[in-house]
């Protein structure tokens, strides 16, 4: 073509390089509410969030609502339930955290063993 114009400068996909490969993600699905997301890290020491660490091996996402330069707050999606080992999200309707993560169905079964201050959170 003789001429090209502003509108025709569409980039054709470049050969994959370090720059073009999308970041590796880990799938996460909550066993209670079905929330399904891709997270960036699973474990206790997210490499991207400075001095913040976790006491449970969680599914951690980079803050999706802020630019990377502005905030590196880890957003915890959830973790595996201590009792049944199923992934559960941190929503108060799905799980409770007290020294460990418990999905609500498991926590309700053992409600009596939770401190009384937490029992009403279990919805029992």
């Amino acid at each position, binding site marked *: *073509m*003789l*001429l*090209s*114009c*502003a*509108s*025709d*400068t*569409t*980039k*054709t*996909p*470049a050969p994959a390089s370090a720059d*073009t490969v*999308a970041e590796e993600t880990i799938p996460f699905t909550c066993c209670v509410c079905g*929330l399904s*997301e891709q997270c960036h890290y699973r474990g*206790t020491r997210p490499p991207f969030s*400075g*001095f*913040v*660490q*976790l*006491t*449970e*091996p969680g599914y951690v*996402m980079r803050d*999706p*609502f*802020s630019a*990377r*330069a*502005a*905030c590196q*707050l*880890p*957003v*915890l*999606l959830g*973790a*595996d339930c*201590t*009792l049944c*080992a199923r992934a559960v*999200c*941190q*929503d108060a309707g799905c799980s409770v*955290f*007290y*020294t*460990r*993560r418990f999905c609500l169905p498991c926590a309700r079964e*053992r409600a009596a*063993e*939770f*401190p*009384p*201050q*937490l029992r009403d959170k279990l919805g029992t």
Partner: protein
Amino acid sequence: MVTVRNPGTRLTDMTEDAAQMIENGAQIVKKMGLEARERAFLTDYLRSSECPLKPGSEEATGFWPFHALYVRRLAAAGVERGRSPPPPKPSRKVTEPFPLPAYDLRLANPLFVERRVRDRRDARELERQERERREPEARRGREVLAAYLHFLQKQKFAKLKKLREAQRNLPIYQHREEILAAVRDNPVVIVAGDTGCGKSTQLPQYLLQAGYNSIACTQPRRIACIALCQRVSHETLQQYGDQIGYQIRFEKRRTARTRVVFLTEGLLLRQVSADPLLSQYDVIVLDEVHERHLQGDFLLGVMKCLVRQRPELRLVLMSATINIQLFRDYFHGKAPVIQIPGRLFPIQLNYRPISVVEAVASSGRLNPAPFVRVLSLIDDRYPAEERGDLLMFLSGVAEITAVADACEEYARQAGRWIVLPLHSQLSVQDQDKVFAVAPDGVRKCIVSTNIAETSVTIDGVRFVVDSGKVKEMSYDSVTRMQRLKEFWVSQASAEQRKGRAGRTGPGVCYRLYSEDEFDMLAPYATPEIQRVPLESLVLQMVALGLPDARRFPFLDRPAEDSLEDAIRSLVQQGALTADEQLTPLGQMLSQLPVDVTVGKMLVLGSVLHQMGPVLSAAAALSVQTPLTNRAFRDPDCLANLKPLFSSHGDSITLLEAFVSWLQIKVTGKVRSRAWCGERGLEEQRFYELVKLRRQFMTIMEESRLLPKPARLVSAADRVRRHGELSQLRAARRELQESQPRRRRLARGPHGVGDSTEQQRDGDVADIEFQMRTNARDLQPGSDQVFHSASKPFVVLHPNSVLSFSPETLEIADSDVRVTAGPRPPRHSVTSDKHQLLAFVLVCDRWVEFLVSEPAAAQQLLARAVTLRRWWSRLLQTRLDNLGSEEQHEPEEESTLRGRLVAALIDFFHTDVFYSHKRLVPADLDGLYCREPEAETDGRLPPFIRYDCLISDSALSMEEETCPYCDNSLSTLPVERIVHWIRCIFEHKKTKDESAAAAAEGAATEPRGPVCEECSASLEGMTGIQILRHRRTHRPIQPAGEG
């Protein structure tokens, strides 16, 4: 200021200083209380590079208020800070968690804060860690920080969860699997759903989740591309990623990683021309196909062809639930339709027709009374504490102003309304006001054009008033004129307007017409393809390699006439050859995303190196005129404006106004807004103009018609350029989201309300011109009548500069020479001062020139022909040279251009006396002795016909010698013309000219062009400047006595 004597010791000095300071600091800290130490510890933590909250961010500033709250809460609970039980060791192994420790809220936080030890062998780091674990202020600080970060991240998670729930609650979510299955199994799928069902935002995400990797979604509006890109990237949590992108004409956010791109219909069409199979996409989604825009309809046709060629491609059409059958039939019923019910509450419908008497106010404009009545009706019927806003649909800005003013008046008395106009010409900030929430007990009354029908969705509307009218551009292909005309809306539009009342709850719709009138409305609006000129469309088709526009699979065929007219016009413009092949000029024009006429103007400007003024003029003609009505009504404004008026007409006047405004802006001595105010100019239009000019410039640079800005040489240039850039940036900021107006609107009050016909802008290269006949019959100030090739008896708009000084067009008696001729005396007024409204040449079958001296006539013709030849050769050279990367233009081109410019200027100053008249069809009957045919032996250009006029045969010529080459001339007129053309084209000079040139050349060598009247040098002037200079010697004559 510290002078460093020995730079080598500086570093160590400083470290020692710093160490000393830290030492001192530590001493001070120890003396402080626990509170202050904790505060110092936290400040240090928050400033550290490991802190996930960046200093100054919203999150960081929220910390200290949280801290205060946390301290109070723990004190109230009687919990000692800094003494939280040690958290269990993190472990992936499922261990028995029971028994759980007694309740401590700090154990409900899975987050903790601890600085990383980078190097376990580093004793200082280990010591710091130990200290932070042990010392009370560090324990307290880390505790509260962990609590705050946990609180923040919970908020973010809640936001995410809410987002997902909102997505699931959209009506389209129920159809997700159905849609994906249909797309998998069918090349074409139609998804029909009303606004609010979520199709535009969700469907691209579904496709993405289903594994399609390259998805293009077209939108009719540029603003929608950006908005959707923002929305969808937010929803896919890619706000700061690049999977979701957009691309509009002058802007894009798109990388190799982009998987979904929102783009305008026009842009996808341009991509088709570069890549006919669009192999970069695996799914193409056409949104809002029901809007039936020109580009959208065309794109649909192109896609229909494409799907046949690429069976693996997936095409999804998205439409409102309007006229789905049309689309189904277009794909022969093979495309499955998935209907998504909208979320609409019941709407109570009231017909309140306006009586004939009341329809028009005494001023002749729209009577706002029936609209105001609805306001008081709402006040009477619905208690103020029941929320719900009112949305009024009117046809145009003038109507909106009238009704909004009247409503404002009512609102002042009632005190329960806020009146907000809404139309595309408002600034973005003003448009945004309609989204603000009104205070309790007050309703918004939004007075809008049809922009609020589909493009802008306002929540909280409970009442709708529909005037039933809409203003649309209509095009008359016979006269080639576009104008804004008021029409009744279609039933589909009326329903759409009504639906706006029921988006957030049950609503009420008042139609200010009767039910009978509604029944008579057209079911659907006329598609744009049947309303607008098709030149650009046809040109694009040919450029895409669709040889015959007549055989294109249109969704709705445009009228045959308008198609034929477009083709004919393109041939006339030189974009297509007579057998409808693309010319190099056509190829060029098809690349320019502007109107054919504007495009040609730009190409011409590039070829003649007059880019600056042409860019400004093209932009000035494409935005609304900055001259408001007030400019002509207010005597002060008019007086202030007078110096800007140009006798060359409106285009040059606009240019003058723009240049003066720019100067005001640059010098900065006077506030430009005030300057505009004094002249009745609308400053906003100038900003639009600047932006559009910039866009035109980008287009020209991209198509290499304009060299890309080279590195600037002098400091002064850089400073100037910097000034311009910051000015432009300021202008762009102001205009960030406002769309440039591409359509030309009839000029009038605010540029819109008036439906006065306006001439199509004269194209400099166009061989049409408008000329006044019978000047002597007209009094200055009276309505002058003009004729154009396609429309006789055109009246200049009363606000045209030329209407203000009609004497410009008058022929002074002193310039008139009455000759005795065979024609009635009326036509025998010959003069060399007939004014042309647009520059240049001759025309076909509609104007006749009668020149008293045949030899002069032939020479004139020869010169005109030469001009045209040079022009086309120059254009060709220019287009040929575009491919090369040469920095400097080839010599051939510059010589050619020099000649052409000189000859053009010369041509304007021809002293040949002639008369002219418009030919009417009756004249044509007796004019030709045989059908005009093209010359066959190629000596004359194809645009000249000869020997076919009845009077031609009567001409016999005396033998003469050629003034250029001394050879004797034939007695046959044709032979003479051919001879002359050859002589002029080879750039021979007449004997007189060469003698004069030789004499002067000897005296002042080298010399540039010089004004013949005052001998001032014209060196370095542009053609227009030279013309303007020469004009100063020919003062505008006061009008003759009739």
